[in-house]
């Protein structure tokens, strides 16, 4: 089954007098349980493609399908609902809510998802344990390292067990040890829960974890390499 399908996606930005083609007739299929890295130099279109797949950015033309549902023509609120229930986002900057503890940051998203109050605390502790933050649930972001904060962000993204996780440069602010730890966590989730991962990166170490490496340049897909299975 196809987890993500992009058909002839185009997106152009205007920068002063100059038009920049961020996506130039992009076609992409990602199978359920895929572990895909989008690799491109800066400005190559990987973040724009990721945003289009996540419904954060509407393409100028083309179609985006997630798990068999077309999303490029959805309303803002429908897209928000889709992201809340089916897609997990991990960003380069962790952007946790600074006044909430690790557990509360995860719980906040669950509350919005409508998870009953009695289940939230249990699930939050479980997911924090799963991402290796057992015992740190009461700490606020300022009391944690970058790697730990990124793990909370991952826990927040994964707590609803989304079928699709979109990660934009998730290791950019992490040291190599934390980056490896995070990627191993992604691989484990991919293997155990068949979660589909699409990761935008230009970090060679991250690409090494991918089952499939898609290379982009100037908004076009210029390479699609099948690597190893996990």
């Amino acid at each position, binding site marked *: 089954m196809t987890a993500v399908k992009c058909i002839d996606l185009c997106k152009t930005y205007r920068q002063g007098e100059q038009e920049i083609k961020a996506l130039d007739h992009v076609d992409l299929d990602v199978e359920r349980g895929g572990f895909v890295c989008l690799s491109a130099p800066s400005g190559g279109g990987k973040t724009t493609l990721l945003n289009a797949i996540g419904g954060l950015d509407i393409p100028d033309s083309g179609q985006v399908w997630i798990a068999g549902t077309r999303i490029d023509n959805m309303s803002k609120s429908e897209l928000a609902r889709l*992201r809340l229930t089916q897609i997990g986002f991990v960003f380069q900057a962790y952007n946790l809510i600074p006044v909430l503890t690790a557990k509360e940051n995860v719980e906040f998203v669950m509350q919005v998802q409508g998870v009953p109050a009695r289940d939230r605390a249990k699930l939050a502790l479980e997911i924090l344990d799963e991402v290796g933050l057992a015992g740190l649930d009461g700490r606020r972001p300022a009391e944690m390292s970058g790697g730990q904060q990124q793990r909370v962000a991952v826990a927040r993204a994964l707590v609803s067990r989304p079928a699709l996780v979109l990660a934009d440069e998730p290791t950019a602010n992490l040291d190599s040890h934390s980056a490896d730890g995070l990627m191993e966590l992604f691989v484990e989730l991919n293997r155990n829960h068949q979660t589909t991962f699409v990761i935008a990166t230009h970090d060679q170490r991250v690409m090494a974890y991918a089952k499939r490496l898609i290379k982009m340049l100037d908004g076009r897909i210029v390479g699609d390499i099948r690597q190893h299975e996990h």
Partner: protein
Amino acid sequence: MNITLRLAWRNLWRHSRRTWLTLGAMAFSNILLVFMISLQFGMYGMMIDNTLRVMTGHLQVQAEGYKDEHKMRQTVPDIAELAASLRRDLELERVAPRALAFALASSSDRTYGLQIAGVDPARESLVSSIPGLVRTGNYLAAGDAAEIVIGSVLARNLRVGTGDEVTLLGSGLDGSFAAAVVTVSGIFETGVVELDRGLAEVPLGFFQDVFFMEGAGHQVVIAARDLDEAALLTERTRELVADNPGLVVHDWDALQPGLRQAIKADMSSAFFMYGILVILVAFSVLNTQLMSVLERTREFGIVMALGISPGRLGRLVLLETALMGFMGFVGGAVLGALVTGWFAANGFSYPGMDELTANFNLPSRVYPPVAFLPTVIGPLVVYFFSMVSALYPALRLNWLQPVEAMRAA
């Protein structure tokens, strides 16, 4: 505690100095509003009470049309008996009959026009402050003696003092001449120039004899303890006189229409000033919440990307404002009530107030009442407009694009 509530509460204290400053502005304006509105209500109560206490009373039974036409023949028959029956039925002592006429008063060398009130000397002090305002001599003795109390300005104009004789000349109920010679027993001073210059009181029985009233009068005056009791007494009295055709009951508002108008005019100007104060506070809240939203643009972008709707984030901003407003409301109302309570016990005055209040026959100190409505109305308005001012920052989130918001510095 609900996590959204916890989040809203902690967000408030991200910049505690800014929150404290806004709270301070809210609390200060609320204290000011509570005190000023209480003072105003106290002043109005005093104005009404003092005005009505001079002569009008809180309600009167009159012949139909007398209030507007003041014709001598528009009488209430057997007025003393009616007053007595009302006193009995209402179980109230503060009921007194009165008759009124216009006459000329002459001393040995001067003549002035005046209004003469025939009063029950034993009861008049229960419905009017004039008996207590006699500065020279004595008020009318019980009975129907040919004596008169006059205002201080009239006494000066007629050049008479206590013990002097004054000749009254007027028109009786039947149209004939009414004339009498009376002795000045006392001179009163109300502070209201019109009364001190143009009012005199004689015993009711004597008045009825001189003006051929045959037991009739013009007003049964009833005084209540306060305006709430006045409303009840008016209703009850209307029921009691319903069987007497030609008689009507007027409440204080109908008897002194200018009083409410004066209060309304004063309230309008005061509420204009309060409005400015509330708007200033609302702008302070708007500034705080707008800053708070703007500096969290990136954070909002991230949570919107996670699927949290702008509406929910807007409600979070409103909840933060509601919490701040609630603290301002409680703090302002409690401190305002304490300040008002202190002045309620000790009275409020300022330099020059003595002369100002004397012109209106008011005491030189005001004792603002601590009451529920004046305590909550100002803070409630501030709370409401704080919430209104937070609508813009909250609604602004609807136009936020997650991708652009996440790029914000």
